[in-house]
């Protein structure tokens, strides 16, 4: 079995190595016809840019994306500089340089990789999936009978911030940096998922399709790991199935299918303010111009945030969203599960968390206020601050750096819920409801706590669960996402997540336990 697992790991690493090496490979050659088509499509009016590309890029062969991208971007920046100076605003190309370069590269890729998309898919995704399953499935036997499977977690370099942990950290951070800021370097990755994208939406894959597809694949594979690890615990199994379902169907398939029917791309479960650009003018315009269906989305989005979310939190706690539905939560609970114990449990971290997460919520609300004011008043700035620049600051700092690079990239260092705990404005909103008006609590079972610390250690949100349990006190905390792992790892049956009468939420037993402080 161990040999089989090593073999699986080998296959997985082969697939991963090939996947990474695709960044450096490939032939890029932009033909005249392709470039002309692009000029039409994008409505490019900069003669400078066109001349520059025609002399330095078109019909030339580039190996690897870097030089190609550099020439495109240089041409773009030089042209823009001149046009700006001359105030020829209609000639300026407003796209982000690397996004623009991505669109050019996507057309220019030639040769082996775009011609053998299926094969390259198999050699990267395919080998990765087969390898990881060969590594994970034997756990059914190697980990022993059903039960808590946390042996050796703190001896393993990948789960104890060792060399392997830091390597995964570097990989994940690099991935997110490329995805968000240098999409033109990962054009090859998008080629290999083109056939899948075309079969769903009819379009070629963008880097966001790639990300969505990869997200689903990673979650599925790691959900299988969860099913094996927690096979003694029905709550965990149902919860894992739920997040997986919502990711694949709601976040991935439905939006792509909407595109096929020429409707706006929309994830029905992604509630504002996590979905921070819902009220941005481009989105509102796109929804309003999509007729009845667009209006339905607009109403749904507002009702989801204002009614459905708080009412559900009242009845079930924020877990119904954070650990049963949410995509970020879904990745955290599957890919992130091996890192859940790395969250910081100190009081200092709790203080930071409260400032930061409510700060982001305030930021999101203020930004949306500005956005709507701008939208309805037609001005572009309030108090001299441009709405556009607030939006792009939020998008860069919160949407990309915090949620992506730090939120997921830092899994192996700070645990799997960094974003959900310190950054997610929706979690902050749900948390306020959970803390002040909800039937949800984690009940502490009388005096049975032995203060062992498993609950606190394995709390991904960094809640010091033990501090409550050893006092016989129920746990009511705004940050709790209700993953149920504290209850699962408790060796003495002390903790139970439940929804009950609000009046008895913070009940303390009235007989001597040695733990009731009066």
């Amino acid at each position, binding site marked *: 079995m161990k040999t089989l697992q090593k073999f699986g790991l080998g296959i997985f690493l082969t697939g991963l190595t090939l996947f990474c090496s695709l960044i450096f490979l490939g032939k890029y050659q932009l033909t005249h016809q392709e470039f002309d088509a692009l000029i039409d499509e994008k409505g490019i009016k900069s003669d400078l840019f066109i001349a520059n590309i025609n002399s330095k890029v078109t019909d030339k062969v580039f190996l690897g994306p870097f030089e190609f991208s550099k020439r495109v971007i240089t041409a773009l920046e030089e042209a823009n500089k001149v046009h700006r100076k001359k105030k020829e605003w209609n000639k300026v190309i407003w796209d982000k340089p690397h996004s623009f370069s991505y669109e050019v590269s996507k057309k220019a890729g030639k040769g082996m990789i775009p011609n053998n998309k299926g094969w390259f898919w198999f050699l990267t995704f395919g080998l990765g999936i087969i390898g990881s399953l060969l590594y994970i499935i034997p756990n059914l036997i190697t980990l*022993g009978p059903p*039960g808590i499977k946390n042996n*050796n977690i703190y001896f393993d370099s990948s789960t104890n911030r060792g060399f392997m942990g830091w390597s995964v950290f570097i990989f994940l951070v690099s991935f997110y940096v490329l995805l968000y800021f240098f999409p033109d370097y990962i054009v090859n990755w998008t080629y290999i998922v083109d056939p899948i994208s075309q079969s769903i939406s009819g379009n070629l894959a963008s880097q966001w399709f790639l990300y969505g597809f990869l997200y689903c694949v990673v979650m599925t594979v790691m959900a299988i790991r969860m099913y094996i690890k927690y096979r003694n615990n*029905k709550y965990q199994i149902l919860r894992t199935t739920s997040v997986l379902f919502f990711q694949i169907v709601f976040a991935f398939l439905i939006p792509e299918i909407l595109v096929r029917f020429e409707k706006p791309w929309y994830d029905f479960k992604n509630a504002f303010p996590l979905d921070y650009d819902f009220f941005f003018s481009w989105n509102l315009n796109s929804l309003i111009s999509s007729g009845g269906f667009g209006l339905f989305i607009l109403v749904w989005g507002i009702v989801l945030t204002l009614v459905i979310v708080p009412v559900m939190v009242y009845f079930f706690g924020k877990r119904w969203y954070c650990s049963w539905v949410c995509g970020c939560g879904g990745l955290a609970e599957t890919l992130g599960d091996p890192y859940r114990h790395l969250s910081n449990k100190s009081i200092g971290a709790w203080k930071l968390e409260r400032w930061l997460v409510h700060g982001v919520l305030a930021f999101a609300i203020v930004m949306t206020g500005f956005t709507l004011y701008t939208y309805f008043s037609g001005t572009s700035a309030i108090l001299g601050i441009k709405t556009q620049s607030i939006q792009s600051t939020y998008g860069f700092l919160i949407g990309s750096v915090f949620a992506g690079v730090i939120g997921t990239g830092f899994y192996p260092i700070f645990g799997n819920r960094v974003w959900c705990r310190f950054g997610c404005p929706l979690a902050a909103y749900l948390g306020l409801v959970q803390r002040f008006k909800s039937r949800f609590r984690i009940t502490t079972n*009388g005096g049975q706590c032995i203060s062992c610390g498993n609950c606190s250690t394995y709390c991904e949100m960094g809640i010091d669960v033990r501090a409550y349990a050893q006092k016989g006190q129920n746990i009511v905390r705004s940050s709790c996402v209700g993953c149920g792992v504290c209850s699962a790892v408790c060796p003495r049956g002390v903790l139970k997540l439940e929804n009950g009468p609000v009046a008895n939420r913070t009940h303390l037993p009235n007989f001597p336990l040695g*733990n009731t402080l009066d």
Partner: protein
Amino acid sequence: MVSQAPIIIIGNGIAGITTARHIRKRSDIPILIISKESRYFFSRTALMYVYMGHLKWEHTQPYENHFWKKNRLDLCQETVTNIDPQAKTVKLSNGSILSYTSLVLATGSLPNKFGWPGENLKGVQGLYSKQDLENLEALSSSIKEAVVVGGGLIGIELAEMLHARGKKVTFLVREDSFWNTVIPESDSKMINRHIISHGIDLRLSTNLSEIIEDENGRAKAIRTDKNEIIPCQFVGLTVGVRPNIDFIKHTSIATNKGILVNKYLETSQTDIYAVGDCAEQQEPLPGRRPIEAVWYTGRMMGETLAKTLTGKKTAYQPGHWFNSAKFFDIEYQTYGLVAARPTKAEIHFHWENAEKNIGITIAFNKSTNEFLGINSFGIRLRHEIFDQFLTEKRSVFHVLEHLNDCNFDPEFFTSLGVEIVTKFNHEFNTNIRLKKKSWTRIFNNLITIK
């Protein structure tokens, strides 16, 4: 003016620390806690998880390091060598002498040894203290095979620990079934099967005769009373614990097996008290043992004594017995008293699902049907409800009717109430109907303290 002498607490385990915390909640008296074992309080019950790699050492500490200073609980990492009850002082191994206003002895336990040949060899130890854990960790890489002697709660934990780190474990149990001096036969048999299913070589009715030494003074094998030699590089001696009172025996404080205390936890000397594992009740409560070396009683004694020391003299009244443990993957909870070998007046009802490793045993009075206690394996039960059943002297029928209220398993777990009640009805020719879970009942009679 000399500043006020502190309350000195010897021992920073659960009993000593609970005393200290509760005194501090009620008063500003200076407190000094002396312990050589570790600077900061840690959860002894969590030692096993450190060895198994579930936790790091710092996770066993329930309070952050700044907690002690913030709450003005002074810590001293030294050994107490003598106590002078007349002068009201304690002497430390570094020679210094400290005065106290009150002294709390919370010195805990020591692992038993019974004079076996080779019991002091390298590679032979118990598992009780931080140092035991460190010694085991230091030896760990050189252990391939291990023998654990003694079929109690620490024994099975040590077996699980060693097994988790890939050691081949042989488990010697004196009795003919695991822990059957405490739990009834059918419960015990279920645990036997579970131990074996994990690949532990369980030897029942087997005693240790001697530990055999290698050329370096380390254990290399053991010989059983059946004259069998089992090679091993580690021998875990887990044949119970005794109060850690060797340095108290030659003082004027009265001792027997432990430090003798009355119901107020007072020793024979004024202003000296004892709590936790080291305390021996002169008049134990009915059905209870004079020394109860468990986490929960240490905590309750600490809370009780803190009241006395802050001006509200309070007798130790631990309430109904409860306890818990975990046998590999099987969680165990008990409420009330279930005799290992029931007297004629006590009837046992046992139900189990062998495939899922779950089962319960309920004890009740033969003539009155009064519910006496429950052992539960692999099913979590609500403490408060059982406490209430026992206080109200409810009948076994009432308990069974309300099994769904009692269940504390995570949501979506299959409810086994129907199976259990059906079996009971069949065995005792009754017609009990299981009620649906009711929040009103669960909370109705429980008074909420804010």
